[in-house]
């Protein structure tokens, strides 16, 4: 599929048309309450779209795995009915690191038990990704090799200053892009896009990791009893903010909501978080990760070791830096912990 160029004006016209013809369109815009921040929200007007944003408060995972969703409506008098969102939708403005997180979720939600709720939404989505134009204050995507992305999206937009380079990666994306007024991207345009990629791969790096992301798993191999877990967790609120804002945290809790007839109801799932006290509570009130330090360690093992072992070694931290900003006591930064372990293990080697 060919690479196109859109002037800034034809991009706006194109988004106008998308908004007027498609039912559900979400896009990055200023946060409705705190206008110095950004969020994904229903896009009512093209003027609200901000492809120059740095990072959104919540990742776009909320469109694929909502904070609360009904899985099944049940009736004790007989039967149950699976609930499922089947509406098609478009998300505009997903950054490469968030796209890679979605790619990882796609793999995970198809493995073992195929998650039809997630996958139905995913298949109904059209994703217009865009390369990062403004680095956020805590981004470290360059370290995690997630500053650019090669798959998962339907269309990728790259701001090259005098317009956007647009590349459709799927048929769905091509059909949508065909509606825009485009010209063929010139060699200079392609070069300019390459320059954006190279710059992002190097410079989206506010917290540099001192090793390759692929080496983290091995690093954690010998770190289970390291003092860093206890030290950091001392000031952990167990508030789960790091989990809630993470694009690769997908754990959920399931509960039943009864109706007033006390016979029928909804089975729902809601976001959960491994840092929360009670996350591992089972019958009869036994809790197998009751210690804060155990929960703190679990999160970083999950990102650096457990999930990578399921998805071909990719580290499950995409370097968006949201957890760093969300953590009040400032202990959540994965790079600080991994670098600390690196220092200590290399000191042992010496």
């Amino acid at each position, binding site marked *: 599929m060919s690479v196109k160029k859109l002037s800034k004006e034809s991009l706006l016209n194109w988004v106008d048309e998308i908004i007027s013809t498609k039912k559900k369109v979400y896009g990055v815009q200023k946060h409705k309450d705190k206008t110095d921040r950004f969020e994904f929200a229903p896009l009512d007007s093209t003027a609200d779209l901000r492809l120059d944003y740095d990072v959104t408060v919540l990742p776009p995972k909320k469109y694929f795995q909502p904070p609360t969703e009904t899985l099944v409506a049940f009736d004790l008098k007989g039967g149950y009915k699976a609930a499922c969102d089947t509406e098609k939708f478009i998300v505009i403005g997903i950054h490469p690191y968030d796209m890679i997180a979605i790619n990882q979720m796609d793999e995970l939600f198809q493995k073992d038990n195929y998650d039809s709720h997630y996958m139905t939404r995913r298949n109904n989505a059209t994703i217009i990704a865009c390369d990062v134009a403004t680095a956020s204050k805590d981004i470290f995507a360059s370290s995690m090799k997630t500053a650019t992305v090669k798959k998962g999206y339907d269309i990728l937009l790259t701001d090259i200053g005098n317009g956007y380079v647009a590349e459709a990666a799927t048929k769905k994306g091509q059909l949508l892009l065909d509606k825009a007024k485009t010209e063929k991207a010139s060699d200079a345009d392609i070069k300019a896009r390459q320059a954006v990629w190279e710059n992002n791969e190097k410079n989206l790096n506010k917290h540099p990791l001192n090793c390759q992301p692929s080496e983290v798993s091995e690093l954690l191999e010998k770190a289970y009893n390291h003092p860093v877990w206890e030290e950091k967790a001392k000031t952990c609120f167990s508030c789960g903010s790091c989990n809630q804002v993470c694009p690769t945290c997908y754990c959920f809790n399931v509960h039943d909501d009864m109706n007033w007839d006390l016979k029928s109801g909804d089975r729902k799932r809601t976001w959960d978080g491994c840092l929360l006290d009670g996350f591992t509570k089972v019958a009869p009130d036994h809790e197998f990760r009751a210690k804060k330090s155990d929960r703190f360690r679990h999160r970083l093992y999950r990102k650096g070791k457990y999930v990578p072992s399921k998805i071909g070694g990719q580290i499950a931290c995409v370097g968006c830096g949201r957890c760093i900003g969300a953590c*009040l006591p400032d202990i959540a930064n994965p790079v600080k912990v991994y670098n600390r372990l690196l220092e200590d293990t290399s000191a042992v080697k010496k």
Partner: protein
Amino acid sequence: MNKPRVAVFDFACCEGCQLQIVNLEEQILDLIGAVNVVEWREAMSEQSHEYDIAIIEGSITRPEDEEKLWLIRSRAKILIALGACATLGGINKLKNNFDLNDVKKCVYGKDASKPHLYTELTKAVDEVVEVDYKIHGCPIEAKEFISIIRSLLIGKKPEIPEYPVCVECKAKGNPCLWEYGQLCLGPIIRAGCNARCPSAGHRCYGCRGYINKPNVEAAKDVIEKYGLSVEDLKSKMVLFGSRQDNTL
């Protein structure tokens, strides 16, 4: 199964939590269809000495209230504390931080010593009798009230969040109010309100009580990081947090 007999009683409070129940609108019919309400001063005139579930609103501030509560406890199979005054002592407990004579003079002036105005230190319901379940908040969340009542009706243990307000606040996509200069109590206060106040731009005031293991060390670190003092934090916690006990 016979419908459980429910009685609602109020002590020292504004009765706003009962009002939340009255305000269930069309669902009030479902509620009174699912249970047999035998006494509820705010909504009906009948009274009864026989009930299975007693719902207690308000804090306990007088010796005669304690006696009445003991009696209710002895008659009820399940006793529920409703709202912050009942679960924590609520705003009424502020007075426990001062000399009681000063408090009386401040409130009642020259009538302070009249016998019918006599009160003692404020107590949460569980400081007087055993409480089976607590429905938190100032006022309570109608949705949570419904879910707890339905759970009890099917014999299931109600799910009351053990995690702090931040969980619900983050899920709603709110940026943290600490970043905007507000001393929000969200990280140490029990969730279940769907982050009602932070979502409206106000810090968490702590009406649902502390989580089981609030991290005091972390709180100290954070207030230092934001250039605040322990006194600043304490001054925000005093509204609902005076002499607070375990809240689950």
